[in-house]
């Protein structure tokens, strides 16, 4: 069998242009359902009425501000690309990345604080709510690491000045995901605060 | 040796099959036909087969009804069971003709409208009237079934109120056995918890609880008085089980960590049921109906339904928990 190629049609680029963002949105929907399943598990478990309250560590509050700031910084990056000012774009994306890393650090500090105060993730001293608080935050960080990887890619591309006003699709997809992660964290933060803590 | 012979035979069959297919294809080609095109004759033949299939299917259905329907569970031995059996019957009166008619129409159309080169198919793409009709018809039937079903369901699931005369029995499932505990004279079950399991106290009854002292624990078989509401409380010590009383049309899962409830009123004694079923050895049974491990298929307990006097006599012979 001979291989036939379609001449003169660069359809792959066109498909990418049309579908990158929708793909990201559908991915976000499935992640929402994943966390939706877990948070409804928290609510169903609470129906048993055996929940004690746990004090939320302060560094989770810091995390919240960190991630909001990082989203803002990323947005500034996109605006400056559109305006053609690469220097600001580079700095903004770099700041976003650093804030993202800082977020992971504050999460870690939060877990340490929880552990110190006798809230354990597993074992016979753990309770369902203590397991859930670790699990939900950790799963969010797992998803955030994906976001950090995409940020690194975006940073490299910004450094190489690959983006422009009409060619910033990769950055837009990455920014969508990053905003989503921020929103997800804020949801989890308040959810945990008002159900478990 | 056997294996080799079988293998050779299989290979030969495959080769022969391939050759036959090739020949058939070439023959069709030489006649100027395409082997994958369905001729009018072939379509007619398959259409007739469709009709034959439907008739045999119905004959098969009738044959099964004659030979196997008699094996169904005997008449319900509980009050609510008579009610649900009636509704089941009503549902069958609705679904059996539906099943026969729609299948019949399907296969009849296949026979009637099989391919003919002279006929034109009718271009008929939608009809609001027809569609409205077959949306409404099932909806009406369903309304009846839902309303009747829900009223039965709520009656069955309502626990027996305290002031009604009844007995309370706790059934505990564990791999692969059942234990029954009667609430005793105070009609209250004592507390129990898995952490209290020790030696003969196999279901973890709390010996310090006043209510537990007159509780009676039985294994192997348990008895019920006829006509008396029985409130069952279910527990499980290890995995999920399901307490299934087929003759009483009753079932409830046993879930570790929580208790579940079900109640029914037995109406037919074991003796009477032996006469009804014409079977001297008939026994009511409780079986496990939720996969629970290797011996799941043999997790059973006998139930004896008898007169109040016989029941009282039997219960008096059973030891209380503290004894």
């Amino acid at each position, binding site marked *: 069998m001979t291989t*036939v*190629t*379609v001449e003169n049609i660069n359809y792959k680029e066109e498909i990418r242009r049309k579908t990158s963002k929708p*793909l990201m949105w*559908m991915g976000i929907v*499935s992640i929402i*359902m994943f966390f939706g*399943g*877990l948070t409804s598990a928290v609510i*169903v*478990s609470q129906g048993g009425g055996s929940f004690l309250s746990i004090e939320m560590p302060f560094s989770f509050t810091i995390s919240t501000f960190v991630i909001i700031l990082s989203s803002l910084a990323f947005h500034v990056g996109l605006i400056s690309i559109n305006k053609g000012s690469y220097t600001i774009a580079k700095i903004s994306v770099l700041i976003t990345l650093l804030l993202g890393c800082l977020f992971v650090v504050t999460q870690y500090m939060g877990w340490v604080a929880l552990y110190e105060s006798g809230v354990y993730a597993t074992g*016979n001293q753990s309770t*369902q709510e203590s397991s859930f608080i670790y*699990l939900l935050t950790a799963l969010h960080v797992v998803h955030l690491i994906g976001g950090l990887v995409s940020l690194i890619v975006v940073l490299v591309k910004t450094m190489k000045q690959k983006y422009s006003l009409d060619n910033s699709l990769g950055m837009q997809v990455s920014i969508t995901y990053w905003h989503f992660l921020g929103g997800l964290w804020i949801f989890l933060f308040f959810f945990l605060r008002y159900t478990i803590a | 040796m056997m294996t080799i012979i079988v293998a050779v035979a299989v290979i030969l069959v495959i080769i022969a*099959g391939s050759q036959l*297919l*090739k020949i*058939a294809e070439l023959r069709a080609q030489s006649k100027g036909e395409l082997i*994958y095109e369905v001729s009018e004759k072939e*379509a007619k033949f398959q259409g007739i087969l469709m009709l034959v299939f439907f008739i045999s299917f119905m004959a*098969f259905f009738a044959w*099964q009804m004659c030979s196997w*329907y008699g094996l*169904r*569970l005997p008449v319900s031995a509980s009050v609510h069971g008579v009610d649900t059996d009636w509704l*089941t019957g009503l*549902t069958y009166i609705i*679904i059996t003709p539906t099943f026969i008619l*729609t299948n019949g129409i*399907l296969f009849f*159309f296949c026979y009637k409208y099989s*391919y003919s080169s002279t006929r034109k*198919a009718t271009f008929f*793409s*939608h009809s609001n009237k*027809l*569609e409205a009709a*077959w*949306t409404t018809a*099932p909806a009406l039937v*369903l309304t009846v079934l839902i309303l009747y*079903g829900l009223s039965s*369901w709520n009656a069955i*699931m309502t626990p027996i109120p305290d002031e009604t005369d009844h007995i309370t029995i706790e059934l505990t499932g564990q791999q692969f056995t059942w234990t029954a505990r009667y609430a005793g004279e105070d009609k209250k079950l004592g507390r129990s918890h898995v*952490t209290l399991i020790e030696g003969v106290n196999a279901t*973890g009854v709390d010996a310090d609880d006043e209510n537990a002292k007159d509780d009676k624990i039985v294994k192997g078989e348990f008895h019920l008085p006829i006509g008396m509401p029985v409130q069952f409380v*279910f527990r499980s010590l290890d*995995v*999920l089980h399901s307490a299934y009383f087929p003759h009483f049309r009753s*079932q*409830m899962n046993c*879930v570790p*960590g*929580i*208790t579940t409830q079900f109640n029914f009123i037995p109406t037919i004694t074991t003796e009477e049921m032996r006469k009804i079923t014409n079977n001297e050895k008939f026994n009511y049974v409780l079986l496990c*109906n*939720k*996969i629970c491990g*290797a011996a*799941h298929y043999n997790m059973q307990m006998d139930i004896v339904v008898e007169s109040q006097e016989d029941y009282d006599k039997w219960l008096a012979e059973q030891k209380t928990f503290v004894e």
Partner: protein
Amino acid sequence: MSTHHHHAKDFLFTYIFSTDHKMISKQFLVTGFLMGFLGLIMSTLFRLQLGWPGESFEMIEMLMGSWQEGGVMSPDKYLALVTMHGTIMVFFLLTAGLSGTFSNLLIPLQIGARDMASGFLNMLSYWFFFISCMLMLASLFVEGGAASAGWTIYPPLSALPEAIPGSGAGMTLWLVSMSIFIVSSLLGSLNYIVTIFNLRTKGMSMTRLPLTIWAFLLTAILGVLSFPVLLAAALLLVFDRSFGTSFYLSDIYIGGQVLDHTGGSPILFEHLFWFLGHPEVYIVLLPALGITSEIISTMSRKPIFGYRAMIGSMMAIAFLSFIVWGHHMFLTGMNPFLGSVFTFTTLLIAIPSAVKVFNYLTTLWKGNIVFTPATMFSVGLVSTFISGGVTGLILGNSALDINVHDTYFVVGHFHIVMGLSAIFGMFAGVYHWFPKLFGRMMNNKLGNIHFWITIVCAYGVFFPMHFLGFAGVPRRYYTNSEFPMFNEMIDINVFISICAIIALVGQLVFFFNFVYSAFRGPRAPQNPWKGNTLEWTAPVEHFHGNWYGEIPAVYRWPYDYSKVNAAGEYVYGEDYIPQTTPLGDDEKDGGEH
């Protein structure tokens, strides 16, 4: 030397790591069928035990080794086989095999796209699926055997190796395999949805989509919304099993000691599982219904009756499937009021299902039905959908469910309505689109033989199960011989087992036809069934991009079969009008005259 290297690379990227949707479709098809065949063999093995309990089959010991010591299957191996059969059939054959094959093949071809939204994610989807198949099969060979807690893997049974040996390494592999499977399924679904919404060709509005595409779209939406929840459920189970949390476990005394777990509830798992589990039924069924709609219309040379009603009823089914999961849990001690709500929503599903059936019947009415094997299997699907569907009225009604819950009545019901219907739809699809998949035709005679053996034996296997249910025989029993009341049932079981064995042999006819035709069947013309949809305008040979030159534009809905003008003549001389034919001046679209 260098050409040789190039050939190897070509081979690798054409057949193995292909990003072309048509090749990925074939990969899903072959992998799915192989898994399905294994699942079928497993069912035949445990049917031997059920038909002739305790009897020794020494022939089988040769094949099965320690699984069948002395030729007799042990109870825990029996449960392992039941579990693996269910898992393989539901997920690997009827979810990935069915959706993976036909969504991949037909979505780009029928909507007029050059490929999926992301060929790379599509390829990943297949390879995740492949890995998960391998892990699932590997679990058959680990210590303690494969997972044995039933395909629903309810904890605590699935969480405690003390309770059943299969809950050790076998269950771990099951969970890992299923997690990978879920990722695969999600990647596929994302792709399908985005492709359908964004890559339709000119003129292909949503109301001109073939019903297959509607079915695949709704299936993918169900998948994206429900599979992540199963992933969450599985994750919590992994934590309970391996890391000492207590999401599902509480107050358990097993093996002579009390476990540390407190506060969890197995009911939570059931809720999460069935929130996926019920939509999963329709993930399996909807593609089959879509395929059938297309085939019945094409082969009876008539427009599908009630195109919009068909879409509407599929949407209603898809929506309702999210609010009925509780009917699997009527007897878990749930609040009776909740039970009432679930009864209500469950029975509502009967309405759109009835609409679909009547629409199929009306489509056949006054048609001109060409009986290819695909048509036959589509008719078979309608029949099984009816026969299995009606008993749903008993099971969905909570008061009646009490007595038949978890008996063979349920086994009969869901095998007919979901198992048979879906596999019939899949067979129909394979026979119908084989020319598109392999560029060759399958043999009709063998296909017809395959159909008749399959439908006769399938009813022979599953219809009698209702009678076992009437007698109160529970499912998942290794043998019924421990209960005197079930002694007389052995006749039924022998009958069922014989039918099952013949059905297995019948499938060999299909596999022979499939393999032979793929390599030596007669060459296919471009449009062998005279279909209207776009895939038949694409060249027979496969290449990246699907169409030479421009993608054809679409001017009409896909069901203009046997359309006649006022004089009673076919409008364009033929009894079919491809979607690419522009509308005439006095013509209306969408089945209007």
